[in-house]
């Protein structure tokens, strides 16, 4: 890649926090439900009151193991808890219980499509994934010098898994592909909801450039971008940062050796990154093993049991859908990337209709578009997979054309009825052979010019007659009309 001057390579590493889908917090029994009134889901433990002690939530360990396996990580036989210490009002203990040198997952990877060459894949290595408790939310106005602060500790102690990639991504597109696949696996396996808007998936991106100056590689200072609230924002923030760093280097000549890592925020409305005030002058978190918690032993049996319970992974499903239903890799990708529920929906439609390709294209166009318009998840979609399957079966068998099928689809969206009832309500009846024959005869007689044109080689002239037939009788099947017309012309 080259930005106006020297060739550059973009280096991106991502730190992703996913909130584990447990009912209770990581070290106490408080609920993790989102959206409760401030400070109503707290107890002495998550408030960090004197004398309160943490007790580990085994469910979070199970989900972390599941996540590790889904990311092809190794799970060590022994892991432990460490305290990460810093002062902040949303951290009531003055330390966060996290994992330092023995994370629960290590050395995994995710394969993504290579954006530059679609048939190849790129491997993004995962350094580690560790468990930690979330902090609360604070709104602290430091600038005014007034001591007014508001703190909501509901989120405090919620289990998070921080997944740290190697700096293996080379473009914002790759970062987005990595995030999409990561989110897919987490949601697919019920590990996390991954709702960026609710904070159950958070992304920090570490970005810098390697600039090739006449064969000499110069690295720009690393910037960590925070506060991105959508995958699109991640892409845009990275792209912005690539330009900004190049400009900065041109202007100042500063390299990675001249500056420590800086933290930037992303302003979505202004579409730019901005430097954040450093929280700590130098981040010495003084990690040490939490003496209130025991080390965690993870016997091989527990890990193998988790592996057996994983079920089919997204990549395997993609391959299977292609083989089983004859759809293209691209189509399998679109369906699988929508998550477990849509995959299940697709399979029922495909099985009931007996037409995997048609099911795939209907789902990608009509179903997903409607879901998007209605803002409704798969589970709430008004047309059941069984019904859609039946509808498409009729299309495949030729008893219903695509246009009429879309009418039925629209009717089913609005009305709770069967496909049969919808067809009846719309007055769709199949036109019998004699009726079709006389309709076509009539059209040919009143349009001799078209017949001449057709015979003269303008095959497409027949199209206008099909359109007229449809007008005279909306139930006429265009394919059947065409066949009948041609048969009559040939016999003249």
């Amino acid at each position, binding site marked *: 890649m080259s930005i106006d001057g020297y060739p550059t390579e973009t280096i991106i590493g991502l730190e992703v926090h996913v909130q584990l889908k447990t009912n209770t917090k990581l070290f106490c029994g408080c609920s993790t439900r989102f959206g409760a009134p401030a400070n109503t889901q707290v107890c*002495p433990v998550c408030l960090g009151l004197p*004398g309160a002690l943490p007790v580990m939530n085994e469910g979070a360990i199970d989900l972390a193991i599941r996540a590790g396996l889904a990311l092809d990580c190794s799970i060590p036989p022994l892991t432990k808890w460490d305290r990460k210490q810093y*002062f902040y*009002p949303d951290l009531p*203990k*003055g330390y966060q219980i996290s994992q330092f040198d023995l994370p629960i997952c290590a050395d995994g990877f995710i394969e993504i499509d290579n954006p530059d060459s679609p048939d190849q894949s790129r491997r993004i290595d995962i350094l580690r994934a560790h468990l930690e408790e979330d902090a609360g939310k604070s709104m*602290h106005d430091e600038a005014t010098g007034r*001591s007014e602060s508001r703190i909501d500790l509901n989120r405090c102690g919620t289990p998070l898994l921080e997944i740290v990639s190697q700096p293996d991504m080379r473009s914002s597109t790759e970062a987005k592909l990595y995030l999409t696949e990561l989110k897919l696996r987490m949601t697919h396996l019920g590990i996390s909801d991954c709702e960026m808007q609710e904070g159950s998936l958070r992304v920090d991106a570490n970005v810098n450039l390697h600039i090739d100056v006449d064969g000499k590689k110069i690295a720009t200072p690393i910037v960590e971008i925070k506060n991105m609230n959508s995958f699109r924002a991640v892409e845009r923030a990275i792209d912005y940062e690539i330009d900004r760093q190049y400009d900065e280097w041109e202007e100042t000549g500063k390299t990675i050796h001249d500056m420590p890592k800086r933290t930037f925020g992303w302003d979505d409305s202004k579409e730019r990154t901005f430097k954040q005030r450093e929280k700590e002058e130098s981040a010495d978190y*003084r990690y040490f093993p939490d003496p209130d918690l*025991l080390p965690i032993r993870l016997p091989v049996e527990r890990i193998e049991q988790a592996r057996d319970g994983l079920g089919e992974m997204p990549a395997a499903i993609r391959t299977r859908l292609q083989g089983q239903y004859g759809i293209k890799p691209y189509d399998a990708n679109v369906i699988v990337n929508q998550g477990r529920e849509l995959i299940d929906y697709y399979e029922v439609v495909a099985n009931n209709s007996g037409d995997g390709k048609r099911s795939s294209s209907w789902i990608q166009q009509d179903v997903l578009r409607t879901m998007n318009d209605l803002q409704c998840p798969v589970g709430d979609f008004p047309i059941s997979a069984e019904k859609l399957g039946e509808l498409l079966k009729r299309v495949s068998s030729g008893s219903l054309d695509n246009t009429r099928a879309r009418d039925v689809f629209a009717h089913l969206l609005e009305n709770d009825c069967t496909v049969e009832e919808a067809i009846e309500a719309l007055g769709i009846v199949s036109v019998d052979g004699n009726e079709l024959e006389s309709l076509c005869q009539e059209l040919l007689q009143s349009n001799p010019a078209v017949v001449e044109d057709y015979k003269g080689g303008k095959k497409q002239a027949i199209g206008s007659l099909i359109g007229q037939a449809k007008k005279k009788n909306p139930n006429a099947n265009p394919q059947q009309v065409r066949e009948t017309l041609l048969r009559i012309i040939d016999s003249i």
Partner: protein
Amino acid sequence: MLDSALEILRLQSTGEASAVDVTEKVFESIESSESSINAFTHVDRDLALATAEAIDKKRRAGEPLGPLAGVPVAAKDVLCTKDMPTTCSSNMLRHFRPPYDATVIEKLRQADAVIVGKTNMDEFAMGASTETSAFGVTRNPWDTSRTPGGSSGGAAACVAAGNVPLSLGSDTGGSIRQPSGFCGVTGLKPTYGRVSRYGLVAFASSLDQIGPIGWSVPDVALLLQAISGFEPRDSTSLDREVPDYTSALQTSDLRGLRIGVLRDALEADGIDDQVRAAVHDAMQVFKSAGAELVDVNLPHSEYWVPTYYVIAPSEASSNLSRYDGAHYGHRATELDPDQVEQLGPLHATYCKSRGEGFGAEVKRRIMVGTYALSEGYADQYYNQALKARRLIKGDYDTAFTQADLLLGPVSPTPAFPLGEKVDDPIQMYLCDLFTVGANLAGIPAISLPAGLNSEGLPLAIQLQAPALQEARLLFAGAAYQTTTDHHQQRPNL
């Protein structure tokens, strides 16, 4: 002077005294001694009397009563109580009332004990003389010019003064045993994990343990029984059955028991001659009771104090981070403009609140601990101390293959004058010379009164046992007290 817990139970069961009578006597006693001793940070007569009345009512109604029914107990002010302040003798928590009870307090209530108040201590349990308290020093009932020891100075002094028969202390490096020794009472530090730490305000989490203080071994056994046991809210609590600590304490027969004498401790520099003599006397007592005496050494004992004074402050620096003025506890009202300028209002609030709320010794340990955990120093200090701790544990493991119990002194000297060491941290830390080993190894140990010195000050001996062998400590301690009367001596108030 109040009777023993066992005697109080007997008097109530025969109807010779009611719980209210006993409680009234407690407050009469506190009233007469408190001005000279200052053992308490908080007492609540009305609350205690209400509890006592409820117990008497239950007794009259023939309802089942707990094993400590009507027995007055005082609790070190490091244990959370929802109906009394919990201050840790610190300005930081001067007005703090926890919304919950510590597990041991819950257990006391279930046992129908009458909690009379909270006892004074070194601030956040950091000290060996109760002089670092923000509520004034506690004085030794045997000699009010001297320290009762610490950090559970108030808990030991109130028993010695006859205010209550029993109290709960906490022991991180000797904080039950040393003040018990200085005050001529019996104090036991249980195995790490034997008693739930839930609701014990943490000083050094891997070392802290709650334990009983009383006149005699049978009383101490009674309280230990009531507070011991596994509890899921403390992940470090041990899921092991609790034996009957109160049985088999009427014996003087120690045949078959091997008692290891800690020779190095007895010959240590700076150990008082009369302290040494008290241990020698105890050796004779155990020998005549039939025990076999063997010499035992703990080779890494010279590293105990340095190891302890890295690990304990490290953990403390972390545990005390929560007192930042943001959520509860002391919060500075007027900020230092220079600090606001330099650090911003948030950090200036932290600095000022912590600066005002903590005393000098607490600050010293926070700084030492912060340093020991810092990047570049952790390997030299904290991680090195963890290695030493493993060696120290190993020494005990070896020693307990040669002996069933270990005998030695509790402290190098008897109670020292107030003010003598308070400005000399190193001298103060050396008070823990013989006690921190049990905390580092997580094993139980007991301090037993061993007579008075020529100045009329209590002397003490210490027995240590393998993990979870509290019953063995109590058994040997009871035998010692069956053949001696040191534990029956009382100060003249």
